[in-house]
Protein backbone atom coordinates (compact mmCIF):
# COMPACT_ATOMS: atom_id res chain seq x y z
CA UNK A 1 0.00 0.00 0.00
CA UNK A 2 2.59 2.49 1.10
CA UNK A 3 4.76 1.68 -1.92
CA UNK A 4 1.95 2.61 -4.29
CA UNK A 5 0.69 5.70 -2.53
CA UNK A 6 3.18 7.21 -0.11
CA UNK A 7 1.68 8.96 2.89
CA UNK A 8 3.51 11.87 4.44
CA UNK A 9 2.64 13.80 7.57
CA UNK A 10 3.89 17.30 6.78
CA UNK A 11 3.38 18.83 10.23
CA UNK A 12 4.79 17.16 13.35
CA UNK A 13 6.32 18.99 16.30
CA UNK A 14 8.79 16.65 18.02
CA UNK A 15 8.78 18.86 21.11
CA UNK A 16 7.90 16.11 23.57
CA UNK A 17 10.13 13.47 22.01
CA UNK A 18 12.63 12.14 24.52
CA UNK A 19 15.49 12.00 22.01
CA UNK A 20 14.81 15.57 20.83
CA UNK A 21 14.91 16.83 24.42
CA UNK A 22 18.06 14.81 25.21
CA UNK A 23 16.78 14.15 28.73
CA UNK A 24 16.97 17.85 29.59
CA UNK A 25 14.16 18.52 32.11
CA UNK A 26 14.59 22.30 31.87
CA UNK A 27 14.14 22.11 28.12
CA UNK A 28 10.97 20.09 28.66
CA UNK A 29 9.71 22.78 31.06
CA UNK A 30 10.47 25.43 28.43
CA UNK A 31 8.54 23.47 25.81
CA UNK A 32 5.57 23.28 28.15
CA UNK A 33 5.77 27.00 28.94
CA UNK A 34 6.03 28.07 25.30
CA UNK A 35 3.61 25.61 23.67
CA UNK A 36 1.37 24.80 26.69
CA UNK A 37 1.53 21.10 25.87
CA UNK A 38 0.41 18.90 28.75
CA UNK A 39 0.78 15.45 27.24
CA UNK A 40 3.54 13.11 28.39
CA UNK A 41 7.02 12.87 26.86
CA UNK A 42 7.24 9.96 24.42
CA UNK A 43 10.19 8.08 22.95
CA UNK A 44 10.81 8.41 19.21
CA UNK A 45 9.79 4.77 18.86
CA UNK A 46 6.29 5.60 20.13
CA UNK A 47 5.97 8.40 17.54
CA UNK A 48 7.13 6.00 14.82
CA UNK A 49 4.46 3.53 15.96
CA UNK A 50 1.79 6.24 15.92
CA UNK A 51 2.75 7.09 12.34
CA UNK A 52 2.91 3.46 11.20
CA UNK A 53 -0.51 2.74 12.71
CA UNK A 54 -1.79 5.68 10.65
CA UNK A 55 -0.20 4.20 7.52
CA UNK A 56 2.24 7.10 7.25
CA UNK A 57 5.59 6.47 5.60
CA UNK A 58 7.40 9.68 6.47
CA UNK A 59 6.89 12.69 8.69
CA UNK A 60 8.25 16.23 8.57
CA UNK A 61 9.60 17.14 12.01
CA UNK A 62 9.59 20.86 12.70
CA UNK A 63 11.78 22.96 14.93
CA UNK A 64 10.95 26.58 15.71
CA UNK A 65 13.51 29.14 16.82
CA UNK A 66 11.42 30.72 19.58
CA UNK A 67 12.52 33.58 21.86
CA UNK A 68 13.28 30.80 24.41
CA UNK A 69 15.56 28.96 21.98
CA UNK A 70 15.07 26.37 19.27
CA UNK A 71 12.33 23.95 20.27
CA UNK A 72 13.44 21.30 19.81
CA UNK A 73 17.12 22.12 19.24
CA UNK A 74 18.23 21.78 15.61
CA UNK A 75 21.18 19.66 16.76
CA UNK A 76 19.04 16.93 18.28
CA UNK A 77 16.66 17.07 15.33
CA UNK A 78 19.64 16.72 12.97
CA UNK A 79 20.67 13.55 14.81
CA UNK A 80 17.14 12.13 14.53
CA UNK A 81 16.85 12.72 10.78
CA UNK A 82 20.37 11.39 10.21
CA UNK A 83 19.55 8.11 11.93
CA UNK A 84 15.92 7.61 10.84
CA UNK A 85 14.84 7.57 7.21
CA UNK A 86 11.23 7.94 8.34
CA UNK A 87 11.82 11.55 9.36
CA UNK A 88 12.47 14.73 7.39
CA UNK A 89 13.70 17.82 9.24
CA UNK A 90 12.61 21.43 8.87
CA UNK A 91 15.02 23.73 10.69
CA UNK A 92 14.10 26.36 13.23
CA UNK A 93 15.80 29.62 12.24
CA UNK A 94 15.32 33.22 13.26
CA UNK A 95 15.49 35.03 9.91
CA UNK A 96 15.92 38.49 11.43
CA UNK A 97 19.66 38.14 12.02
CA UNK A 98 20.82 39.02 8.49
CA UNK A 99 23.94 37.19 7.32
CA UNK A 100 24.02 35.14 10.52
CA UNK A 101 20.58 33.70 9.64
CA UNK A 102 21.77 32.92 6.11
CA UNK A 103 24.92 31.19 7.38
CA UNK A 104 22.79 29.16 9.77
CA UNK A 105 20.40 28.25 6.96
CA UNK A 106 23.22 27.05 4.72
CA UNK A 107 24.78 25.06 7.54
CA UNK A 108 21.51 23.35 8.49
CA UNK A 109 20.57 22.52 4.90
CA UNK A 110 24.03 20.99 4.47
CA UNK A 111 23.27 18.84 7.52
CA UNK A 112 20.25 17.33 5.79
CA UNK A 113 17.35 19.63 6.69
CA UNK A 114 14.87 19.85 3.82
CA UNK A 115 13.05 23.06 4.71
CA UNK A 116 12.52 25.84 7.23
CA UNK A 117 9.71 26.42 9.72
CA UNK A 118 8.84 30.04 10.54
CA UNK A 119 6.30 31.20 13.12
CA UNK A 120 6.41 34.98 12.58
CA UNK A 121 4.22 36.24 15.48
CA UNK A 122 5.99 33.95 17.95
CA UNK A 123 9.41 34.87 16.58
CA UNK A 124 8.68 38.60 16.62
CA UNK A 125 8.63 39.63 12.97
CA UNK A 126 6.15 40.23 10.17
CA UNK A 127 6.67 38.00 7.10
CA UNK A 128 6.68 40.96 4.69
CA UNK A 129 9.49 42.82 6.50
CA UNK A 130 12.01 43.78 3.79
CA UNK A 131 14.89 43.16 6.19
CA UNK A 132 14.20 39.47 5.74
CA UNK A 133 14.44 39.52 1.96
CA UNK A 134 18.08 38.41 1.89
CA UNK A 135 17.08 35.35 3.85
CA UNK A 136 14.14 34.57 1.57
CA UNK A 137 16.36 35.06 -1.47
CA UNK A 138 18.80 32.43 -0.20
CA UNK A 139 16.01 29.99 0.69
CA UNK A 140 14.66 30.41 -2.83
CA UNK A 141 18.11 29.73 -4.30
CA UNK A 142 18.47 26.61 -2.16
CA UNK A 143 15.07 25.48 -3.48
CA UNK A 144 13.70 24.35 -0.11
CA UNK A 145 10.24 25.24 1.21
CA UNK A 146 9.33 27.51 4.08
CA UNK A 147 6.42 26.36 6.20
CA UNK A 148 4.79 29.48 7.66
CA UNK A 149 2.50 29.21 10.63
CA UNK A 150 -0.85 30.70 9.62
CA UNK A 151 -4.28 30.48 11.24
CA UNK A 152 -5.23 29.84 14.83
CA UNK A 153 -2.42 29.74 17.35
CA UNK A 154 -2.89 28.28 20.82
CA UNK A 155 0.21 30.06 22.05
CA UNK A 156 -0.94 32.62 24.59
CA UNK A 157 1.15 35.63 23.59
CA UNK A 158 0.61 35.18 19.85
CA UNK A 159 -1.94 37.56 18.36
CA UNK A 160 -4.40 35.91 16.01
CA UNK A 161 -4.49 38.95 13.75
CA UNK A 162 -0.80 38.42 12.95
CA UNK A 163 -1.48 34.83 11.86
CA UNK A 164 -3.57 35.80 8.84
CA UNK A 165 -2.38 33.99 5.71
CA UNK A 166 -2.40 37.22 3.66
CA UNK A 167 0.50 38.36 5.88
CA UNK A 168 2.61 36.08 3.66
CA UNK A 169 1.44 37.49 0.33
CA UNK A 170 4.21 40.09 0.00
CA UNK A 171 6.79 37.33 0.41
CA UNK A 172 5.11 35.23 -2.25
CA UNK A 173 4.86 38.05 -4.79
CA UNK A 174 8.44 39.19 -4.14
CA UNK A 175 9.86 35.66 -4.42
CA UNK A 176 7.68 33.87 -6.95
CA UNK A 177 9.94 30.81 -7.10
CA UNK A 178 10.02 30.42 -3.31
CA UNK A 179 8.09 27.36 -2.19
CA UNK A 180 5.75 28.37 0.60
CA UNK A 181 3.44 26.25 2.72
CA UNK A 182 0.67 27.93 4.70
CA UNK A 183 0.01 25.84 7.80
CA UNK A 184 -3.41 24.76 9.06
CA UNK A 185 -5.15 25.82 5.80
CA UNK A 186 -4.97 29.27 7.41
CA UNK A 187 -7.99 28.35 9.54
CA UNK A 188 -10.30 30.22 10.08
CA UNK A 189 -9.16 32.25 7.04
CA UNK A 190 -9.41 29.20 4.85
CA UNK A 191 -10.69 30.93 1.71
CA UNK A 192 -7.90 33.50 1.87
CA UNK A 193 -5.29 30.76 2.21
CA UNK A 194 -6.98 28.67 -0.47
CA UNK A 195 -7.00 31.53 -2.97
CA UNK A 196 -3.31 32.18 -2.26
CA UNK A 197 -2.67 28.56 -3.22
CA UNK A 198 -4.88 28.85 -6.30
CA UNK A 199 -3.37 32.11 -7.49
CA UNK A 200 0.31 31.57 -6.73
CA UNK A 201 2.10 28.65 -8.31
CA UNK A 202 4.42 27.86 -5.41
CA UNK A 203 2.01 28.24 -2.50
CA UNK A 204 0.76 25.11 -0.75
CA UNK A 205 -1.52 24.48 2.21
CA UNK A 206 -1.19 21.96 5.00
CA UNK A 207 -4.23 20.34 6.49
CA UNK A 208 -2.86 20.04 10.00
CA UNK A 209 -4.58 20.87 13.25
CA UNK A 210 -8.12 20.70 14.55
CA UNK A 211 -9.78 23.90 15.74
CA UNK A 212 -13.52 23.47 15.84
CA UNK A 213 -14.26 19.88 16.87
CA UNK A 214 -13.01 16.35 16.51
CA UNK A 215 -10.74 15.60 13.56
CA UNK A 216 -13.69 14.27 11.55
CA UNK A 217 -15.80 17.33 12.37
CA UNK A 218 -12.99 19.75 11.60
CA UNK A 219 -11.73 18.18 8.37
CA UNK A 220 -15.26 17.70 7.11
CA UNK A 221 -16.11 21.33 7.89
CA UNK A 222 -13.01 22.65 6.12
CA UNK A 223 -13.07 20.45 3.01
CA UNK A 224 -16.81 20.05 2.44
CA UNK A 225 -18.57 22.99 4.12
CA UNK A 226 -16.21 25.95 4.13
CA UNK A 227 -14.70 24.83 0.83
CA UNK A 228 -16.56 22.37 -1.36
CA UNK A 229 -15.44 18.92 -2.54
CA UNK A 230 -15.62 20.14 -6.14
CA UNK A 231 -13.42 23.14 -5.41
CA UNK A 232 -10.90 20.99 -3.55
CA UNK A 233 -10.81 18.51 -6.42
CA UNK A 234 -10.55 21.04 -9.27
CA UNK A 235 -8.52 23.84 -7.69
CA UNK A 236 -6.54 22.44 -4.79
CA UNK A 237 -5.82 18.78 -5.52
CA UNK A 238 -2.16 19.60 -6.23
CA UNK A 239 -1.81 22.08 -3.38
CA UNK A 240 -2.96 20.45 -0.14
CA UNK A 241 -0.51 18.50 2.03
CA UNK A 242 -1.68 16.15 4.75
CA UNK A 243 -0.44 17.08 8.22
CA UNK A 244 -1.44 16.15 11.74
CA UNK A 245 0.06 18.79 14.10
CA UNK A 246 1.10 16.12 16.60
CA UNK A 247 1.26 16.32 19.64
CA UNK A 248 -1.78 18.58 19.42
CA UNK A 249 -3.59 15.77 17.60
CA UNK A 250 -2.71 12.17 16.81
CA UNK A 251 -1.85 11.30 13.17
CA UNK A 252 -4.14 8.24 13.16
CA UNK A 253 -7.18 10.34 13.99
CA UNK A 254 -6.35 12.84 11.24
CA UNK A 255 -5.87 10.12 8.63
CA UNK A 256 -9.22 8.58 9.59
CA UNK A 257 -10.79 12.03 9.29
CA UNK A 258 -9.49 12.56 5.76
CA UNK A 259 -10.57 9.04 4.79
CA UNK A 260 -14.09 9.85 5.98
CA UNK A 261 -14.45 12.62 3.35
CA UNK A 262 -15.89 11.67 -0.04
CA UNK A 263 -12.95 12.31 -2.35
CA UNK A 264 -11.67 10.92 -5.65
CA UNK A 265 -8.78 8.50 -5.16
CA UNK A 266 -6.29 10.56 -7.16
CA UNK A 267 -7.10 13.62 -5.02
CA UNK A 268 -6.74 11.61 -1.82
CA UNK A 269 -3.39 10.20 -2.95
CA UNK A 270 -2.06 13.64 -3.82
CA UNK A 271 -3.13 15.16 -0.52
CA UNK A 272 -1.88 12.25 1.55
CA UNK A 273 1.59 12.14 0.05
CA UNK A 274 2.18 12.70 -3.65
CA UNK A 275 2.10 16.50 -3.33
CA UNK A 276 4.65 16.35 -0.51
CA UNK A 277 6.88 13.99 -2.50
CA UNK A 278 6.87 16.48 -5.37
CA UNK A 279 7.36 19.54 -3.18
CA UNK A 280 10.26 18.01 -1.26
CA UNK A 281 11.78 16.40 -4.33
CA UNK A 282 11.75 13.00 -2.71
CA UNK A 283 12.54 10.00 -4.87
CA UNK A 284 11.36 6.59 -3.76
CA UNK A 285 9.47 6.81 -0.46
Amino acid at each position, binding site marked *: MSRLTPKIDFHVHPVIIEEALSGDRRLEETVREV*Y*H*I*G*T*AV*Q*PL*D*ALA*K*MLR*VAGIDKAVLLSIDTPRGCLPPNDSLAAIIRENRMFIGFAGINPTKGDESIDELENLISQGFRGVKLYPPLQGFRPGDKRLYGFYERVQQLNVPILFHTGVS*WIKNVKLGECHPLEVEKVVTSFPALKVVLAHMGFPWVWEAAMMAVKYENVYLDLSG*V*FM*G*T*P*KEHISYVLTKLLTPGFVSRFLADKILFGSDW*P*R*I*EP*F*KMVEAVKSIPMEKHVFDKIMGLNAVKLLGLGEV
Partner: protein
Amino acid sequence: MKIYTKPVYVISEAPTHLVNITGEVYKALRESGVKSGLVHVYTTHTTTGLTINEDEPGLEQDIPLFLSKLVPEEGEYFHHHYYAKDGRLAVNAWAHIRASLMGNHLTIPVDDGKLIMGSRQKIYLVELDGPQRRRIVIQVIGE
Protein backbone atom coordinates in the same frame (compact mmCIF):
# COMPACT_ATOMS: atom_id res chain seq x y z
CA MET B 1 6.07 -5.63 56.30
CA LYS B 2 7.81 -4.97 53.03
CA ILE B 3 6.60 -2.60 50.33
CA TYR B 4 8.25 -2.81 46.91
CA THR B 5 7.24 -0.34 44.21
CA LYS B 6 8.24 -0.65 40.57
CA PRO B 7 7.20 1.51 37.59
CA VAL B 8 6.99 -0.40 34.32
CA TYR B 9 6.85 1.27 30.91
CA VAL B 10 5.25 -0.29 27.85
CA ILE B 11 4.69 1.08 24.36
CA SER B 12 1.35 -0.01 23.00
CA GLU B 13 1.12 -0.98 19.35
CA ALA B 14 -2.32 0.20 18.22
CA PRO B 15 -5.17 2.59 19.02
CA THR B 16 -6.73 -0.17 21.12
CA HIS B 17 -4.46 -2.95 22.30
CA LEU B 18 -4.48 -5.50 25.07
CA VAL B 19 -0.90 -5.71 26.33
CA ASN B 20 -0.16 -8.82 28.36
CA ILE B 21 1.89 -7.62 31.34
CA THR B 22 1.73 -10.82 33.43
CA GLY B 23 5.45 -11.41 33.01
CA GLU B 24 6.26 -7.93 34.30
CA VAL B 25 4.10 -8.48 37.38
CA TYR B 26 5.78 -11.81 38.13
CA LYS B 27 9.18 -10.17 37.68
CA ALA B 28 8.32 -7.43 40.18
CA LEU B 29 7.07 -10.04 42.65
CA ARG B 30 10.32 -11.99 42.39
CA GLU B 31 12.38 -8.81 42.82
CA SER B 32 10.41 -7.89 45.91
CA GLY B 33 11.22 -11.12 47.74
CA VAL B 34 7.68 -11.11 49.16
CA LYS B 35 6.29 -14.58 49.87
CA SER B 36 2.91 -13.71 51.28
CA GLY B 37 0.84 -10.57 50.66
CA LEU B 38 -0.67 -8.65 47.79
CA VAL B 39 0.38 -7.29 44.42
CA HIS B 40 -1.27 -4.06 43.43
CA VAL B 41 -1.13 -3.09 39.74
CA TYR B 42 -2.04 0.47 38.86
CA THR B 43 -2.08 2.45 35.61
CA THR B 44 -1.22 6.13 35.86
CA HIS B 45 -3.31 7.12 32.81
CA THR B 46 -6.92 8.08 32.19
CA THR B 47 -7.22 6.41 28.79
CA THR B 48 -6.00 2.95 29.74
CA GLY B 49 -7.55 0.20 31.81
CA LEU B 50 -6.42 -2.95 33.54
CA THR B 51 -8.11 -6.31 33.43
CA ILE B 52 -7.53 -9.98 34.11
CA ASN B 53 -8.76 -12.32 31.43
CA GLU B 54 -7.85 -15.23 29.20
CA ASP B 55 -4.97 -14.79 26.75
CA GLU B 56 -6.94 -15.93 23.75
CA PRO B 57 -6.39 -13.92 20.52
CA GLY B 58 -10.12 -13.71 19.77
CA LEU B 59 -10.87 -12.24 23.17
CA GLU B 60 -8.03 -9.77 22.78
CA GLN B 61 -9.97 -8.41 19.79
CA ASP B 62 -13.46 -8.88 21.25
CA ILE B 63 -12.90 -6.81 24.38
CA PRO B 64 -11.86 -3.55 22.63
CA LEU B 65 -14.45 -4.14 19.91
CA PHE B 66 -17.21 -4.49 22.49
CA LEU B 67 -16.01 -1.36 24.28
CA SER B 68 -16.08 0.58 21.01
CA LYS B 69 -19.70 -0.46 20.43
CA LEU B 70 -20.65 0.38 23.98
CA VAL B 71 -18.96 3.80 23.87
CA PRO B 72 -18.78 4.90 20.22
CA GLU B 73 -16.39 7.57 18.98
CA GLU B 74 -19.13 9.40 17.16
CA GLY B 75 -21.39 11.25 19.53
CA GLU B 76 -21.95 14.42 21.47
CA TYR B 77 -19.42 14.61 24.29
CA PHE B 78 -19.00 17.60 26.60
CA HIS B 79 -15.28 16.80 26.80
CA HIS B 80 -14.77 17.69 23.14
CA HIS B 81 -13.69 21.30 23.42
CA TYR B 82 -10.51 23.37 23.59
CA TYR B 83 -8.62 22.12 26.61
CA ALA B 84 -6.16 24.82 27.64
CA LYS B 85 -4.34 22.54 30.10
CA ASP B 86 -3.17 20.38 27.19
CA GLY B 87 -2.88 23.15 24.60
CA ARG B 88 -5.12 21.23 22.24
CA LEU B 89 -8.65 20.14 21.56
CA ALA B 90 -9.90 17.24 23.64
CA VAL B 91 -11.26 14.68 21.20
CA ASN B 92 -11.21 11.40 23.11
CA ALA B 93 -14.08 11.34 25.62
CA TRP B 94 -14.84 7.80 24.43
CA ALA B 95 -11.37 6.63 25.50
CA HIS B 96 -11.81 8.13 28.96
CA ILE B 97 -15.24 6.56 29.38
CA ARG B 98 -14.03 3.15 28.20
CA ALA B 99 -11.13 3.43 30.66
CA SER B 100 -13.53 4.19 33.50
CA LEU B 101 -15.49 1.08 32.65
CA MET B 102 -12.34 -1.04 32.74
CA GLY B 103 -10.97 0.36 36.00
CA ASN B 104 -7.43 1.51 36.68
CA HIS B 105 -6.10 -0.99 39.24
CA LEU B 106 -5.99 -4.66 40.15
CA THR B 107 -5.09 -6.51 43.33
CA ILE B 108 -3.80 -10.08 43.22
CA PRO B 109 -3.09 -12.19 46.31
CA VAL B 110 0.35 -13.74 46.79
CA ASP B 111 1.06 -17.00 48.57
CA ASP B 112 4.27 -18.98 48.74
CA GLY B 113 5.92 -16.35 46.51
CA LYS B 114 3.40 -16.93 43.71
CA LEU B 115 0.45 -14.98 42.35
CA ILE B 116 -2.79 -16.77 43.12
CA MET B 117 -4.26 -16.93 39.65
CA GLY B 118 -6.29 -19.40 37.61
CA SER B 119 -4.56 -21.23 34.78
CA ARG B 120 -6.43 -19.15 32.19
CA GLN B 121 -5.89 -15.81 33.89
CA LYS B 122 -3.48 -13.21 32.52
CA ILE B 123 -2.97 -9.56 33.46
CA TYR B 124 -3.57 -6.98 30.75
CA LEU B 125 -3.00 -3.30 30.28
CA VAL B 126 -5.85 -2.16 28.03
CA GLU B 127 -4.69 0.61 25.72
CA LEU B 128 -7.64 2.72 24.63
CA ASP B 129 -5.97 5.67 22.87
CA GLY B 130 -2.66 4.47 21.55
CA PRO B 131 -0.10 3.82 20.49
CA GLN B 132 1.74 5.53 23.30
CA ARG B 133 4.28 4.83 25.98
CA ARG B 134 2.39 4.02 29.17
CA ARG B 135 3.45 3.81 32.81
CA ILE B 136 2.12 1.13 35.10
CA VAL B 137 3.08 0.98 38.77
CA ILE B 138 3.38 -2.42 40.42
CA GLN B 139 3.42 -2.40 44.20
CA VAL B 140 4.10 -5.56 46.18
CA ILE B 141 3.07 -5.48 49.85
CA GLY B 142 3.74 -8.30 52.29
CA GLU B 143 6.38 -10.38 53.99
